């Protein structure tokens, strides 16, 4: 809401010296979010005066007709002689009053006015248009002031309102009343403790004034008050006065015609949306009712709209003429010849208007106000204010008759403990504070229980005040939030982070310590990403959730894997010149739940949910396991003066997975596997030990060349992805090992196996065969070549043996080594290399 301070001052008797910035700070303190203070006209300086055009000389021979004018500017030019001014506009005549910027004036945009030669004549100033003075947008020509506006030579700043300050207020949804000068003036007056004059205080017609336009309301639930007032003999050519144009422009409303401008002006002033019909086009009695499904209406914007029972309709004998509160119909619109005007002021149901506006995607100044709740009692005053303005400015005659349908129920008082505001704020307000503050905002307050309870009836313009806490807020904000003390909360002893929360941090530190940089990708995917991963039609990762309103139509899906986000970030870094990249991410993926209901149930809010109800909601919410992924390309270790670098490989991806498992205290078992998007020969399935055997937790390895191509990655980019939740579950609390101080016995064995035998299996066999004397086993060489047969490889292991309680004898060590080799021979066909 844009509120001109001059307009505000008409109704709030603010001290004269208060600046707009001070006012803004005060209003912010009481809860009106003043976003900016626009100092309009602050950049206009120098002599801008009223002038009278004495003579016009038409100059010809130029591209367009030009006028050379003699303009009386009184004594403003110092000499009292008429001023000679060149003007390109044609919408004025000799004798008209105009606005003249004399040499020395500076207009908006730093436009300095001087005396200069143009079109072969000396021009001593400029006759101004409204746009040039930033008054309002007008491309019709210069401003022609009404006769009697002011004497020539009069300074134009004051009478034109060239300078004004406008408060731009972001109105929160609970403060519908602040979408009006009236509402903001009331707050300003309360903030300064000064008098408020209500613009709705107009002379109302007698309560029994009947004979208005025939109308009826079908249902009080859609419209609680309905007022119609009419005028006749309105002059459709009557111009909108300058002050009204200026005020409307400052609030951001374009001037259309006097009749329309009056309805907008009253809306800005009182917050009550009005509608004006050409009465000659309305046929028969008006009825307010819900739309029938499938009814149609062509609205002012020339769109034929299909209606719905959420729409409130205004109808006459011909059918719908307005979508109430949202947009008027084309047929009954005010026109250039309209002389009889019917003004409607109604209180429509907020929820209906909200749904209607949303469904038709029509958000207007009117719907915005109805949605937030307008004053339920101001309609008669608003309609009256409008017809009086039409009478005053448009020569109309106001109808005697008034239509006033009042179906509103009286508001029930809210019982409020006198101490409630004090208890909520933690401030010991003196007794009587609540009643005083609530009366200030317009509530009626009665005391009960000897003053311990207040019976508070909120004013008609505050539909948001319904609960004791709503009332407490009014008291606390007016008493000043700055007066609330700061008291540290005293929480009971907490348990710190959960193991899962600690693990996430440990994983992050572990991977960062291993040289990976964390990214936080958006979780949005497109089909293209899944295709790029080479996922088959049946791949579970293609079962995604879809957004109804994605930001980007190419990415409507929610991720089921972290890899696309990581790969895109990797490609971005490579594209920016960083070829050696290692990235990781931890985050949720979203997996539709098998057998989930079509729609998550909506539960009651007037009580806590039952266990069954909660379970039903949870069953509709997708599974959202936490994954961790890592990708890497380029050199894992860079080349340097020490020698060549080492490229990142599939093995680094598996090692990253081990890093994660290590952080969780879980041991990873690696097996060869095939899975998209990995290279079929360079993909590892990763398992952890679970209560019921090995649990698959993810995959790692080199990416498939097709995936590399699809995402534009460096060749041999490697990746891993784990379900972190599963790894976490496999973690065991570390038990302290017994550290033996007896000497170690080291034995090396070289085993020859088929090239296809995984080293992991050989090692597992060695471990099992060696028994408990084995301290560690380490593969230190893999050899293929002349020394071994074709299709075979030699694996060299260092075995370390040690006992907890004695020095091992050579015989014991030899026996353990032999057992290890035997196990490897039996399980993998390994042969001890000679």
């Amino acid at each position, binding site marked *: 809401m844009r509120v001109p301070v001059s307009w505000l001052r008409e109704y709030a008797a603010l001290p004269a010296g208060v600046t707009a910035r001070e006012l803004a700070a005060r209003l912010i303190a009481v809860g009106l979010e003043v976003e900016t203070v626009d100092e309009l006209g602050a950049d206009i300086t120098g002599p801008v005066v009223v002038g009278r055009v004495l003579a016009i000389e038409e100059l010809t021979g130029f591209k367009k007709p030009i006028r050379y004018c003699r303009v009386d500017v009184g004594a403003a030019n110092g000499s009292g002689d008429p001023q000679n001014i060149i003007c390109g506009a044609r919408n004025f005549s000799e004798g008209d009053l105009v606005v003249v910027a004399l040499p020395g004036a500076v207009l908006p945009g730093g436009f300095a006015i001087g005396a200069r030669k143009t079109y072969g004549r000396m021009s001593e100033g400029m006759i101004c248009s409204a746009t040039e003075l930033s008054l309002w947008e007008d491309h019709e020509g210069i401003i022609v002031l009404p006769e009697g506006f002011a004497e020539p030579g009069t300074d134009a700043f004051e009478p034109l309102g060239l300078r004004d300050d406008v408060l731009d207020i972001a109105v929160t949804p*609970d403060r519908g009343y602040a979408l009006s000068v009236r509402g903001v003036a009331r707050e300003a007056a309360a903030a300064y403790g000064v008098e408020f004059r209500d613009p709705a205080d107009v002379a109302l017609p007698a309560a029994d004034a009947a004979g208005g336009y025939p109308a009826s309301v079908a249902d009080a639930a859609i419209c609680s008050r309905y007022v119609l007032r009419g005028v006749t003999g309105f002059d459709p050519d009557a111009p909108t006065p300058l002050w009204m144009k200026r005020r409307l422009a400052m609030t951001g409303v374009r001037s259309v015609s006097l009749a329309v401008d009056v309805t907008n002006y009253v809306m800005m002033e009182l917050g009550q949306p009005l509608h004006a019909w050409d009465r000659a086009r309305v046929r028969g009695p008006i009825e307010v009712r819900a739309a029938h499904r499938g009814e149609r209406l062509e609205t002012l914007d020339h769109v034929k709209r299909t209606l719905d029972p959420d729409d409130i309709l205004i109808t006459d004998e011909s059918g719908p003429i307005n979508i109430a509160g949202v947009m008027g119909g084309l047929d009954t619109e005010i026109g250039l010849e309209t002389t009889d005007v019917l003004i409607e002021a109604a209180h429509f149901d907020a929820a209906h208007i909200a749904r209607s506006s949303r469904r038709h995607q029509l958000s207007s100044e009117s719907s915005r106000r109805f949605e937030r709740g307008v004053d339920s009692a101001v309609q008669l005053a608003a309609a009256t204010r409008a017809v009086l303005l039409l009478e005053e400015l448009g020569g109309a005659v106001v109808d005697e008759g008034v239509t006033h349908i009042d179906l509103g129920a009286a508001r029930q008082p809210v019982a409020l403990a006198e101490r409630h505001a004090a*208890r909520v704020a933690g401030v010991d307000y003196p007794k009587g504070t609540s009643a005083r503050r609530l009366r200030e905002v317009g509530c009626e307050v009665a005391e009960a229980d000897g003053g311990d309870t207040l019976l508070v009836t909120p004013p008609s313009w505050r539909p948001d005040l319904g609960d004791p806490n709503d009332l407490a807020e009014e008291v606390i904000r007016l008493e000043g939030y*700055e007066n*609330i003390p*700061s008291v540290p909360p005293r929480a009971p002893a907490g348990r710190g982070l959960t193991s899962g929360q600690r693990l996430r941090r440990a994983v992050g530190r572990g991977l960062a*310590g291993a040289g990976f940089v964390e990214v936080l990708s958006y979780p949005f995917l497109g089909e293209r990403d899944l295709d790029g991963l080479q996922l088959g039609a049946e791949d579970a990762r293609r079962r995604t959730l879809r957004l109804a309103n994605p930001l980007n139509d190419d990415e409507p899906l929610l991720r089921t894997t972290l890899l696309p986000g990581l790969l895109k970030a990797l490609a971005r870094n490579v594209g920016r010149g960083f070829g050696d990249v290692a990235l990781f991410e931890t985050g949720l993926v979203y997996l539709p739940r098998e057998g989930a209901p079509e729609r*998550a149930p909506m539960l009651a*809010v007037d009580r806590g949910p039952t266990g069954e109800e909660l379970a039903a909601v949870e069953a509709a919410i997708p599974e959202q396991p936490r994954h961790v992924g890592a990708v890497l390309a380029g050199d894992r270790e860079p080349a340097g003066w020490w020698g060549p670098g080492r490229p990142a490989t599939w093995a680094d991806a598996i090692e990253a997975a081990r890093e994660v498992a290590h952080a969780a205290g879980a041991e990873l078992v690696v097996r060869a596997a095939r899975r998209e998007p990995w290279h079929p020969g360079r993909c590892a399935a990763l398992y952890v030990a679970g209560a019921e055997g090995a649990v698959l937790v993810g995959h790692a390895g080199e990416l498939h060349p097709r995936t590399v191509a699809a995402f534009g990655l460096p060749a041999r980019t490697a990746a891993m992805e784990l379900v972190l939740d599963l790894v976490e579950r496999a973690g065991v609390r570390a038990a302290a090992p017994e550290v033996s101080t007896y000497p170690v016995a080291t034995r090396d064995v070289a085993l020859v196996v088929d090239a296809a035998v995984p080293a992991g299996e050989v090692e597992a066999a060695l471990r099992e065969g060696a028994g408990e004397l084995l301290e560690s086993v380490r593969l230190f060489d893999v050899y293929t070549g002349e020394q071994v047969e074709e299709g075979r490889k030699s694996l060299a292991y260092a075995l370390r043996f040690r006992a907890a309680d004695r020095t091992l004898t050579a015989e014991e060590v030899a026996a353990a080594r032999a057992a290890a080799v035997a196990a490897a021979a039996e399980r993998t066909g390994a042969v001890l290399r000679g």
Partner: protein
Amino acid sequence: MSAPNNSFDPVEVTALHPDEVARMREEALAAIAAAGDLARLKEVRLAHAGDRSPLALANREIGALPPAARSEAGKRVGGARRDVSEALKRRQAELEEERDARVLVEEAVDVTLPWDRRHRGARHPLTTVAERMADIFVGMGFEVAEGPEVEAEWFNFDALNFLPDHPARTMQDTFFVESAAGGDSGLVLRTHTSPVQVRALLGRELPVYVVAPGRTFRTDELDATHSPVFHQLEGMVVDEGITMAHLRGAIDAFVSGMFGSGLRTRFRPSYFPFTEPSAEVDMECFVCRGASVGDPDAPCRTCGSEGWIEIGGCGVMNPRVLVAAGVDPERYSGWAFGLGVERTLMFAHGVRDMHDMVEGDVRFTSAFGMEI
């Protein structure tokens, strides 16, 4: 007792002759003096002071002397060995000093050579700043609560007193999730971390003191100050006798923990459906502390010369939320706040553009290291 050994062979003990001992001592001392480096001295030590050195061997012969001669011979040999040993020690010290002075200098390397054989990783600053924010409250005894990112509308809106047709609900710019059949699923990407309030109340024993850091989503296009995916830190307390003053205390503790002590905070009345009364929270600009206000010569980029920085929203929990979560509002009261993690990072570390936080450029993230 055996008979005294009078029958020793004088030839065998020439080694103990004073001249011989003196010669051995001189030879040893000469060799020590001649040793030019520590390695040579080590050889000399072995040759002249080792177990098989002439003096050591001579020492062994002492036992072969008649008892009367032993003492003198012992003194003689012992003296010689002591002299050799001391000479060795001295020479060792000399040579070490010389090595220190010369050889180590010759061995000097260029220690400014880079050894960046390993890429250094980093955690995302939004992760670490959110951890730090949460840890301030964990230090006060709060626990960290969590909730899903794809959330039921009931949790995200209804239970938080966002009524179905209230403008506050449409103002949230919500991402809606389609049902399997392409219809209304009743699921959204959570627009704030506030649904965790309701989850914490349903899942925990009272009193509840929790914070909930997490990802949130709104349909804002990415620009310098907006991102459709962003992070909040929710805080909530529900206990007996809780007031807005405690809320203020918690916010103050956060500000001093995060930005330093002595910074003022300011509550401005505002509106959120799930709190009543509600407030926006500003903190005094920690860079200029308000000095830039009205001083065009010393503008402050951090606060835009406003003197205050908005850090989030908060309020007293609306009793309607307590009711929807099954908590008796007559007995319990509480408060909640939501702080922007991106904003906190932007202010605390001078991040100027949201793009930097979402693009995953390693240059940006690496600057923040492991902790923030």
